[in-house]
């Protein structure tokens, strides 16, 4: 399980880096799907099979399909690749790299104080549902109102 965890984590990091430096937009999207799927494996190894499979269904399965759908509609050709290549100079990476390094330092600082063992707990479907409809019911309802608002506005825009 530990090997699988580190392997999936490494794939997630590498494929996410590939998303950033890839100039072909379809390939970048494929790497993003790969990254999401390996995060799903990470969730699974941490003892959260429900979160893992939802990650695969919702992010890798549904949201990324819509991304690919939009790319298909826009029909971007060779010229976007050249444009991308023009944007990807070493200079653009400086500011984000500093910010990411700060975030990483914070994260390592926090993580070093937590003693967490792999495969310690197993959070199944029942536990997640009991929490969602117990203490977090307000958050679930608020999220559904947000989604409804998005749905209504999308309908309004499409009607125009």
């Amino acid at each position, binding site marked *: 399980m530990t090997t699988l965890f580190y392997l999936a984590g490494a794939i997630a990091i590498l494929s996410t880096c590939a998303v950033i430096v890839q100039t072909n937009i379809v390939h970048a999207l494929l790497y993003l799907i790969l990254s999401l799927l390996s995060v799903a494996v990470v969730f699974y190894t941490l003892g959260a099979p429900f979160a893992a*499979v939802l990650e695969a269904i919702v992010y890798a399965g549904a949201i990324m399909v819509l991304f690919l759908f939009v790319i*298909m509609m826009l029909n971007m050709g060779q010229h976007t690749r050249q444009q991308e290549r023009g944007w990807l100079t070493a200079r653009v990476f400086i500011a984000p790299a500093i910010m990411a390094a700060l975030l990483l330092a914070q994260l390592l600082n926090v993580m070093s104080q937590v003693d967490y063992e792999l495969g310690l707990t197993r959070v199944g*479907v029942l536990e997640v549902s009991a929490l969602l409809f117990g203490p977090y019911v307000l958050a679930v309802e608020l999220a559904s109102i947000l989604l409804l608002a998005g749905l209504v506005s999308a309908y309004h825009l499409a009607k125009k």
Partner: protein
Amino acid sequence: MALEIGSGLTIGLILGVVIVVAAMLIWVERRLLSFWQERLGPNRVGPFGLLQVVADMIKIFTKEDWVPPFADRLSFVIAPAIIMIVILLSFAVIPFAPNIGVVDSNIGVLFVLAMASLGAYSVMLGGLSSDNKYALLGSLRAAAQMVSYEVFMGISLLGVVALSGSFNLRTIVEAQEGMWFVIPQFVGFVIFLIAGVAESHRLPFDIPEAEQEICAGYHTEYSGMKFGMFFVGEYLGLVLVSSLITVLFFGGWMGPAFLPPIIWFAAKAGVFIAFFILLRAAIPRPRYDQLMSYGWLFLLPLSLLNLLITGVVILST
């Protein structure tokens, strides 16, 4: 030599049998279609034309495997592999008999849904990377169709999950000891059947590859074994949907004891495979916008209502 869940022998047998059945279905479908259309079908090669599949396979393996120079090579090559991989992976959670299966997973139903949603990439990438207007039209249709029907497919299953109280397909089969779920969940069964046809994009819902309108849709540019993988993938999908219907609504391997469980499973799944072929012979293809509005305006409210009523009944008893 006993078969048990997850042993190497069982996994190998399942993989082999599933692929051979999917390939043989090419012949079965052509013979059955011609039977219903009052003609003979392929009956020349071997007894009853049984070796037709072998002849087709030899042809498809020795054909030139051509990648169009204008295609996006990476996505063009992986697209046909995706459909084979996700469908074969879905078979991992199917309980064929009490002692036959690959894994006994607590998230079986969700795993199948996840694999089905990943299957959409196969047709989308195939069409997009071909750089051909018919292929692109086909994959646009496929994307919208698969994403929409996935929703009702998931919701129609929730009634069964609520009744059995588990996402584990093996537990779902065992929960049907007294009564098959097709009786309390008949609406869910019908919606799942329709969504299953749409997900495996077979006629009457083969709009992504409607040959009269858009050549062959998303696989217009494919040839040789890459086309063969799309082709066999479609039949694998058919076997998968039939097995799922058997497991979820018709008691899986259960049946009177004079036949072994696996035979009952195969017989039930076989009936649904034949039914899907009959659907192809009997129903014309709807228009694309009809398919979408039928899904969102009719199937979605119906499946939600079904879920609501199931919930009310479970809570009140």
